[in-house]
């Protein structure tokens, strides 16, 4: 049978909808491809850099217990004596300790040069142990000499001989740049700014005291790295990890990879959403196509085509379109990747460079997912096509009212999914049930869609009738006549809007909760804080300088460091229980904060305690970087963790349990003399000019800053997801275009009885706007509560404040969606206006 001919001719005859379908597939495939290409490229870039960095090193010794540290080495906890022990191992010809710490090059205006952080490290005296290559100039020898990475040198226009100000924990210091360095083929590592110091001066400048972050060793010629590794491991004991150069490279890759992996995960979520939205769009298009082609399909049946042949016809069409979409989507994905890289660079998050990697997996994925979603989405349409009975279809008129009635099984599943989802959502205190609940609710609404069209579109229809008069009413009638199509179109948009709303509502809740946490707890008048996760700290000199200022009553510095609890790795801050309540009220709910005066105690936020299954009075075996594992008793539980973090230990314990570098201060809580706040603030700001890594805020400012992370992440997510709205709008366009095509006779009739071009435009525009309004409001109404529930789940059920409304979303996304809805009506409306009465009379 030449069913293939029918297929080919059919595709050619319906170019517009074929293009729309392929376009949706292409968009989804492009996002999918770019999320993989980007992560693969970044991974390859990191690997290349890491390999180059550790090329000459035979073995690297680091802390085995994983207390953080930089991406290149490990936590700065190794005693200097370890270097001698490694040097004494037979076969080792050279060994040196590497010191690392916070060092951020500043531009002329005194701003940090990298948003990701600054890494200061010692340049080993032995050339074979150096992790970096000299690009120009020479190595630093004197305490005031440094080398900087090529990226920083380029962005600040530095050449050997230049003078550079560098922010250190102990304050800003000026150095002479004597050379620039690179890491293998790359300018820097993972987007960090890197400053190399002379080996003799590094420890003092970086505040590492007598501790080192890693010991690097070179073996004698002919000694197998693995054998050397085993020998060193035996010599240093079980507290330390010994890796060969290659293993250390792999370690660096996984460390950096976990950072960039977050970006990849966000992109993949986004790609997934666009795949779902695209699938909905395609399903919608095929449903309409098959409904429209009922006659054609029935005729084929009349002339003897079998059921399976018809199903195959539809599926073959779907897979061809899917393949075409994937073929376009892959190169499009490369373009998207380039755009994303540019975007990240532009916002100060340079991704590791390297040749673009298009893995076979990416290509396969595109070509499986593209036709896959297309075929899956077309499956129910194909089933309906195969069911068409020859005579019934030929007699069918396409103008009958399709009631939004659902089959019993569909209503049953919808009701079960909705009630089950709502029940899960209502008392969910964990991510898994909350996520499942959200999916169930969305599924239920999707299944019930056609039945919901009449009630959900009621308000938009009424609005359109009020605004556009008769044409608006006519558009409303059209919508209730085709509930399935409206459900498909508005539903596609609703999924996209709901996703955006969920993220926005979640962020709004978390932002508001973290802000009110700060407002509840913070008593200090001013807070100088460093960016969390950047490694930036202040040393005690900052406390002394600020405490001496006029108007300042008291300064408390907060140092924090990583500890290990069974199955978990957390961050504790050292506090003085006697003076803390004047600065911060943690909101103790159990036990007494004063009990933290005794050594071996800890106060834990109620939330963290619940998460870890700890309770008041319990003793937990905890490992600190120094001094090994000891039992720590939980002496108090508290509510407000935004200012202090979730784990507090006595200051005296902290001093002995953490290495010098962890004694750096992350926050300064400053109390001013009554009536002198403004004056004190000015003085503190002036003093902090020497510490550009710290930002000074008053209480309200700090509350806002504490929530900044959530806010930034939410903005990025919302922006990415907003792109999926474009696919939603594409759904509106195709649906309208098909609707116009289908109603050629009706539009012609309207023209015959005197409807003007403006009437027809108003009709199509009203339909577009009402559909967009329904989709948008449904999406927002579904998305906000789900977002709130998810936010509560993230906080393990503790979200005391009322749900927050994401104002940004409502103020920007909703009007933008409406505007695009209006734009979506332009092309179909133009087409509708062009329909003349005569053309309509001739139409079949």
């Amino acid at each position, binding site marked *: 049978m030449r069913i293939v001919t029918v297929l080919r001719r059919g595709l050619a005859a319906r170019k517009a909808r074929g293009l729309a379908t392929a376009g949706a597939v292409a968009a989804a495939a492009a996002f999918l491809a770019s999320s993989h290409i980007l992560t693969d490229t970044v991974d390859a870039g990191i690997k290349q850099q890491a390999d180059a960095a550790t090329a000459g090193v035979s073995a690297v010794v680091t802390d085995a217990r994983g207390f953080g540290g930089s991406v290149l080495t490990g936590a700065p906890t190794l005693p200097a004596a370890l270097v001698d022990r490694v040097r004494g191992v037979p076969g080792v010809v050279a060994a040196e300790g590497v010191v690392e710490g916070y060092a951020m090059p500043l531009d002329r205006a005194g701003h940090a040069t990298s948003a990701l952080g600054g890494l200061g490290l010692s340049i080993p005296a032995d050339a074979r142990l150096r992790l970096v290559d000299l690009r120009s100039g020479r190595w630093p020898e004197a305490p005031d000499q440094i080398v900087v990475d090529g990226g920083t040198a380029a962005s600040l226009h530095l050449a050997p001989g230049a003078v550079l100000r560098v922010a250190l924990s102990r304050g800003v210091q000026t150095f002479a740049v004597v050379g620039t360095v690179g890491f293998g083929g790359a300018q820097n590592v993972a987007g960090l700014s890197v400053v190399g110091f002379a080996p003799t001066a590094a420890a003092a400048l970086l505040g590492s005291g007598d501790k080192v972050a890693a010991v690097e060793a070179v073996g004698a010629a002919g000694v197998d790295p693995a054998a050397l590794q085993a020998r060193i491991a035996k010599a240093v004991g079980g507290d330390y990890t010994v890796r060969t150069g290659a293993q250390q490279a792999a370690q660096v890759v996984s460390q950096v990879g976990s950072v960039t992996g977050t970006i990849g995960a966000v992109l993949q979520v986004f790609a997934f959403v666009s795949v779902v939205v695209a699938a909905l769009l395609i399903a919608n298009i095929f449903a309409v196509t098959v409904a429209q082609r009922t006659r054609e399909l029935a005729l084929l*049946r*009349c*002339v*003897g*085509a*079998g*059921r399976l042949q018809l199903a195959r016809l539809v599926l073959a069409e779907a897979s061809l379109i899917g393949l075409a979409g994937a073929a376009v989507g892959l190169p499009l994905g490369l373009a998207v990747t380039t755009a994303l890289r540019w975007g990240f660079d532009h916002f100060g998050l340079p991704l590791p460079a390297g040749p673009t990697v298009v893995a076979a997996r990416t290509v396969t994925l595109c070509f499986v997912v593209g036709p896959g979603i297309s075929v899956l989405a077309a499956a129910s349409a194909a089933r309906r096509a195969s069911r068409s*009975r*020859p*005579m019934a279809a*030929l007699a069918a008129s396409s*103008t*009958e*009212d399709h009631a939004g009635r659902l089959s019993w099984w569909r209503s049953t599943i919808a009701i079960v999914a909705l009630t089950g989802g709502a029940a899960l959502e209502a008392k969910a205190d964990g991510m898994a049930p909350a996520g499942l609940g959200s999916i169930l609710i969305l599924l239920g609404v999707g299944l019930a869609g056609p039945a919901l069209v009449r009630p959900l579109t009621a308000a938009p229809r009424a609005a359109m009738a009020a605004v556009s*008069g*008769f044409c608006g009413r*006519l558009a409303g*009638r*059209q919508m*209730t*006549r085709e509930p399935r199509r409206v459900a498909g179109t508005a539903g596609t948009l609703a999924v996209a809007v709901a996703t955006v709303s969920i993220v926005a509502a979640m962020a709004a809740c978390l932002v508001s909760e973290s802000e009110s946490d700060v407002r509840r707890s913070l008593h200090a008048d001013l807070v100088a804080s460093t960016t969390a996760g950047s490694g930036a700290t202040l040393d005690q000199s900052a406390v002394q300088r600020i405490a001496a200022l006029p108007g300042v009553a008291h300064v408390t510095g907060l140092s924090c460091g990583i500890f290990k609890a069974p199955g978990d790795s957390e961050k504790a801050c050292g506090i003085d229980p006697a003076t803390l309540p004047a600065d911060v009220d943690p909101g103790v709910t159990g036990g007494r904060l004063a009990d933290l005066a005794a050594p071996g105690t800890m106060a834990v936020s109620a939330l963290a305690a619940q998460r870890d299954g700890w309770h008041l009075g319990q003793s937990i075996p905890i490992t600190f970087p120094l001094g090994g594992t000891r039992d720590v008793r939980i002496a108090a539980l508290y509510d407000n963790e935004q200012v202090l973090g979730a784990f507090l230990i006595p200051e005296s314990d902290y001093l002995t349990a953490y290495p010098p570098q962890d004694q750096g201060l992350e926050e300064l809580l400053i109390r001013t003399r009554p009536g002198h706040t403004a004056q004190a603030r000015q003085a503190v700001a002036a003093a902090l000019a020497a510490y550009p890594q710290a930002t000074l805020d008053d209480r309200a400012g700090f509350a806002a800053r504490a929530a900044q992370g959530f806010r930034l992440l939410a903005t990025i997510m919302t922006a990415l997801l907003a792109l999926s709205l474009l696919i939603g709008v594409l759904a509106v366009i195709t649906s309208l275009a098909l609707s116009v095509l289908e109603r050629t*006779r*009706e539009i012609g*009739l*309207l*023209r*015959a*009885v*005197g*409807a*003007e*071009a403006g*009437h027809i435009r108003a009709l199509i525009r009203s339909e577009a706007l009402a559909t967009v309004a329904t989709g948008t409001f449904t999406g927002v109404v579904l998305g906000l509560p789900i977002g709130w529930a998810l936010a509560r789940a993230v906080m393990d059920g503790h979200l005391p404040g009322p749900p927050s409304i994401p104002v940004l979303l409502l103020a920007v996304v909703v009007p933008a969606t409406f505007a695009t809805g209006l734009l979506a009506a332009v092309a179909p409306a133009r087409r509708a206006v062009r329909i*003349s*009465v*005569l053309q309509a*009379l001739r139409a079949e």
Partner: protein
Amino acid sequence: MTMIAAAGLTKSYGAEPNAVPALRGVDVGIPAGTFTAVMGPSGSGKSTLLHCLSGLDGVDAGSVRIGGTEITGLAERALTRLRRERIGFVFQAFNLLPTLTARENIVLPLELTGRRPDAAHFDTVVTLLGLADRLEHRPSQLSGGQAQRVATARALITRPDVVFADEPTGNLDRRTGRELLDLLRRSVVELGQTVVMVTHDPAAAARTDRVVLLADGRIVDDVAGPSAAEVLRRLEDLDAEATADAAEPPLTAHPVATPASTPEAGS
């Protein structure tokens, strides 16, 4: 009074040299308050004449005046307005918007410009067409005859200068068709409406005041107070001439588009 006056109407389709002439200089006048049938074999140009007279299609040459207004030079907007206010249409099929009730379909031309229908006139039209108990029904709930009556009511509601009907009985059975023609007739007699109808059915033509016969784009005959037999005879004469001219088998009337039934295959 002459409601429609057409002079020298010429119209061809397609581009030279392959242009197919549809009208070759038609002169016709339609007096107000008359019921006129336009007849002729397939391809004689009768539908084209209707389209040109009503401004749905442009002409190559000639003039059309409706109630004194020259319409051949009018812009699209003015033509639309003309259709809305001074012309009524009844088509063969698909005359109603499926989403509107009968009442809403009837007042559609008024609704487009937000005008209220004149209640008395609405009642007159609805009573004339016997639709009083069908007003709240949707087109899918109406029989074919009822639907055409609703369409006729819509054509009459604006008190147009002229109602153009294009094969209005083409999709109706004989009895329903006759009823509709009687109603059109009554609108002429009782409301003084001017009606121009294209038909291929001599029985339908017999209910009009006058039959204009077209062949090859020209008016070849004009019969006042026709009877069905008379019309049929003249049509057969035309066919015979055509056969003699072209030595071709006579043209049949419109083939009715009903698909052949085939037993369900493959099940």
